[in-house]
């Protein structure tokens, strides 16, 4: 049975790679012919004016611009009563990053550790690992959080970076608006409106780790007030290396594409339709438990990742103080990794309404429903029972913004109510207070409760974790001991009560400082409890089984400080710094037999520092430097590291940009996070790399 399984996989891989090969060739031809047309076509008609250069507008046009968006109230950063950091498109461009996880390294409070060339462990305020489960990630309102293991498969997210308008990172329990699983934060990736990406763009490059990448995007006007854009993107990334410098098998190659249409159908109605599709593979080296000596198997394998989504959003404004939004999306992902093959369909609908209850109170409330259906292919090592499941999630939220003192003191009270198919009802209340002594400073404080609901694997999963050889200290018996990990239907939600305090100030017109501190109290954190061992005779020779079961027998406290400074030192020189301090104290209950999970304390660095310098030099040159320091991970003996990224950009012409970027320059290669217990893919080290890129607009 095992043999047939492998053949089917190989067949699928072969057809997928033919498809992939064809797609690659097509993208290549598309990019090639576009570049040739642009470059030899001589003077082309000017593309439509982009609206962001206001000084070019006539007085009449200027008088037509709305200074506040009539739809959802656009709050300035200083109005936020939470620890918010915004990564702008400019930040992304000047940092030279080629993926969203890498861009997240500049955010205070986030820990971004690269596990191998295509896998990341990203978390906010502790509890990191590839299966980090306390962070909610949304792309244009669509959740990319996987209910299979309550985390994000970062290797399957492929937004065209040039289309990203901004990434809002909110550390701390995501406001009531986002709901469960936003325990330690929400990452909201927002792409630009179609109106802002008009005309064409071609970008392409190559390097030592970036074997090759290219993207094409074109946007145009469909009708009055209706704009669209479409893009196609391809990249191929090289393997990482192991500690001795030997190449591993974690290369990564993806083709993706998508579109977006925005239409302002009337003065107070807007409609958006967008969709994406992607297909690719991400390699890795896996170590499986085996009942036959030497009791583990290590092999290289490619994970096939593909997916598609389509999303529609309708916004309607009733008046300046009242509006509503309705969103629907369908998302399909196929994730075929050595340990588990998952096909998932998600249907989600979301409604929000904002209105002024009185002069002092503004209410936002909403309803949501999500249906997620999966189909899992069980394997010898990982199985889920049932192997197919449809889960319904009903949610409602309400938030009241109360102005206690006009422009000075604002209280926000709210709660999210959810019903899920694992733990039933969950309530997440939240209270925030914002004090604005004057336009420049703000002080805020908040108390919130948040939950992380169980994942599919924690309820239905069964996993062969490892086999311990006979006659060894851990297993003195004459038979091999198979340690299994099982989910449990009684596994409960993890709980958090968070106390946060923050301050931000626009100290001078050139200096902005933001400090956030928090004290988090956790309960019911997942532990793995050993059960009574028993003898088993099938499928192969006799062996002992040491079962372990998921339970919630750990609690703990974490606290820390996050500091952000944005300083325009000179007209042409900007510095941005971020510092993160974190302490974790976890304790298992008295009746717990878990000795591993406490090690989570040692998987987060105590200190992290990021310093970015952007210089606009004469002759249209840009010199950007990014220094990072991450403290050591005591549990894995991963040393602390300093690293440096450098970017030199040149704009010889308004529509042409060349850049050369060096990444991780201070070390040949360095590890950031090793394989943890419970994970099957081996880690690789991050190598020093260089790439060049050309971007052309037309």
């Amino acid at each position, binding site marked *: 049975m095992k043999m047939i399984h492998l053949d089917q996989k190989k067949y699928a891989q072969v057809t997928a790679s033919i498809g992939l*090969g064809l797609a*690659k*060739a097509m993208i*290549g031809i598309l*990019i*090639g012919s576009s*570049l040739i047309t*642009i*470059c030899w076509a*001589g*003077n*082309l008609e*000017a*593309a439509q*004016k*982009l609206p*962001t*250069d*206001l*000084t070019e*507008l006539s*007085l009449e046009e*200027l*008088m037509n*611009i*709305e*200074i*506040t968006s*009539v739809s959802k109230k656009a709050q*300035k*950063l*200083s109005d936020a009563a939470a620890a918010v950091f*915004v990564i*702008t*498109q*400019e930040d992304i461009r000047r940092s030279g990053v080629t993926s969203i996880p890498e861009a997240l390294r500049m955010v205070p409070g986030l820990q971004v550790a690269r596990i191998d060339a295509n896998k990341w462990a990203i978390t906010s305020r502790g509890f990191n690992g590839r299966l980090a489960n306390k962070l909610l990630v949304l792309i244009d309102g669509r959740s990319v959080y996987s209910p299979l293991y309550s985390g994000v498969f970062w290797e399957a997210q492929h937004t065209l970076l040039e289309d990203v308008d*901004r990434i809002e990172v909110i550390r701390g329990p995501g406001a009531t608006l986002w709901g469960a699983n936003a325990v330690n934060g929400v990452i909201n990736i927002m792409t630009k409106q179609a109106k*802002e990406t008009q005309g064409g763009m071609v970008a*392409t*490059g*190559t390097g030592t780790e970036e*074997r*090759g990448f*290219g993207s094409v995007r074109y946007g145009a006007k469909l009708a009055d007030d209706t704009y669209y854009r479409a893009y196609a993107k391809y990249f*191929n990334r090289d393997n990482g290396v192991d500690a001795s410098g030997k190449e591993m098998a974690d290369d990564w190659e993806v083709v993706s594409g998508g579109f977006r249409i925005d239409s302002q159908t009337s003065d107070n109605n807007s409609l958006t339709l967008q969709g994406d599709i992607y297909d690719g593979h991400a390699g890795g080296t896996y170590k499986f438990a085996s009942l036959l000596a030497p009791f583990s198997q290590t092999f290289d394998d490619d994970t096939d990742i593909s997916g598609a989504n389509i999303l529609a959003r309708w916004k309607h404004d009733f008046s300046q103080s009242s509006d509503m939004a309705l969103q629907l999306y369908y998302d399909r992902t196929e994730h075929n990794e050595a340990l588990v093959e998952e096909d998932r369909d998600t249907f989600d609908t979301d409604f929000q309404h904002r209105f002024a209850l009185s002069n002092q109170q503004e209410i936002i409330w909403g309803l949501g429903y999500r249906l997620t259906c999966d189909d899992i292919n069980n394997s010898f090592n990982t199985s889920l029972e049932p192997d197919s499941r449809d889960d319904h999630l009903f949610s409602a939220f309400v938030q009241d913004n109360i102005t206690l003192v006009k422009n000075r003191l604002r209280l926000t009270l709210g709660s999210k109510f959810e019903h899920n198919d694992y733990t039933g009802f969950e309530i997440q209340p939240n209270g925030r207070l914002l004090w604005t002594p004057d*336009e420049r400073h703000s002080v805020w404080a908040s108390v919130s409760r948040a939950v992380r609901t169980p994942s599919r694997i924690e309820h239905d999963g069964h996993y062969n974790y490892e086999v311990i050889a006979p006659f060894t200290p851990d297993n003195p018996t004459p038979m091999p001991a198979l340690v299994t990990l099982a989910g449990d239907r009684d596994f409960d939600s993890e709980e958090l009560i968070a106390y946060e305090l923050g301050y931000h100030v*626009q100290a001078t*017109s*050139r200096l902005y400082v933001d400090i956030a501190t928090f004290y988090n109290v956790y309960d019911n954190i997942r532990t793995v409890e050993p059960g009574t061992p028993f003898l088993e005779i099938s499928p192969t020779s006799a062996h002992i089984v040491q079962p372990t079961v998921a339970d919630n027998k750990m609690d703990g406290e974490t606290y820390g400080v996050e500091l952000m400074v*944005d300083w*325009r030192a000179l*007209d042409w020189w900007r510095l941005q710094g971020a510092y993160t301090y974190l302490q974790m104290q976890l304790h298992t209950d008295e009746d717990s037999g878990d000795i591993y999970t406490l090690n989570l304390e040692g998987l987060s660095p105590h200190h992290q520092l990021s310093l970015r310098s952007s210089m606009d030099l004469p002759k249209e040159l840009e010199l950007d430097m990014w220094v990072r320091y991450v403290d050591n991970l005591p549990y894995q003996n991963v040393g602390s590291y300093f690293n440096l990224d450098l970017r030199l950009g040149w704009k*010889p*012409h*308004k*529509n042409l940009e060349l850049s050369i970027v060096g990444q991780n320059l201070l070390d040949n290669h360095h590890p950031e996070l090793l394989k943890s217990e419970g994970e099957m893919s081996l880690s690789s080290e991050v190598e020093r790399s260089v790439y060049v890129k*050309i971007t*052309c*607009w*037309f």
Partner: protein
Amino acid sequence: MSRKIIRLIFIIALCITVSSWPNAHADPPPSREYVIKAVFLYNFAKFVEWPAEAFPNRRAPLTLCILGKDPFGLALDSIKGKKVRGRKLVIQHLARIEDLEQCHILFISASEEIRLPQILSTIRGMSILTVSDMKRFVQHGGIINLVTIETKVRFEINVGVAHLAGLEISSKLLKLAKIVEDDKKRK
């Protein structure tokens, strides 16, 4: 093989197209309102003529002074250094009204509302274009006031005071403005 195609494409070629590239600045974002008001200031500079004595020579810059608490912040970056009829627009932040000599445009922040009569009497006779966005600025003797009508920016002009200051306001600006008279008639 497809990898070779990708590599072939990496040729450095010049694009000979003409179109503008947006200047994306945002961080921490100056409020949208002041980003737009800053551009209005630039437009006022374009459509007002100062008497020749206001500048020492043909290349002297046009100075925009901000008096009081600066509500613009980084929004001024989009107009700083721009050329207005051959002169560079420079920006100064004033701490006190004594430093007014160099100013051609004086933006009086709403923070100075109580001191407005003093400020205006100090500059009487000087060729300074006074602009603000405080209530009833033009009725009290200011020249241009930026007002927000239903989420859009409009402006009011007191032509009488402008004439007294020796300033010529282009008809392009006058036809889009709301013309207002002083509260008290001046002789």
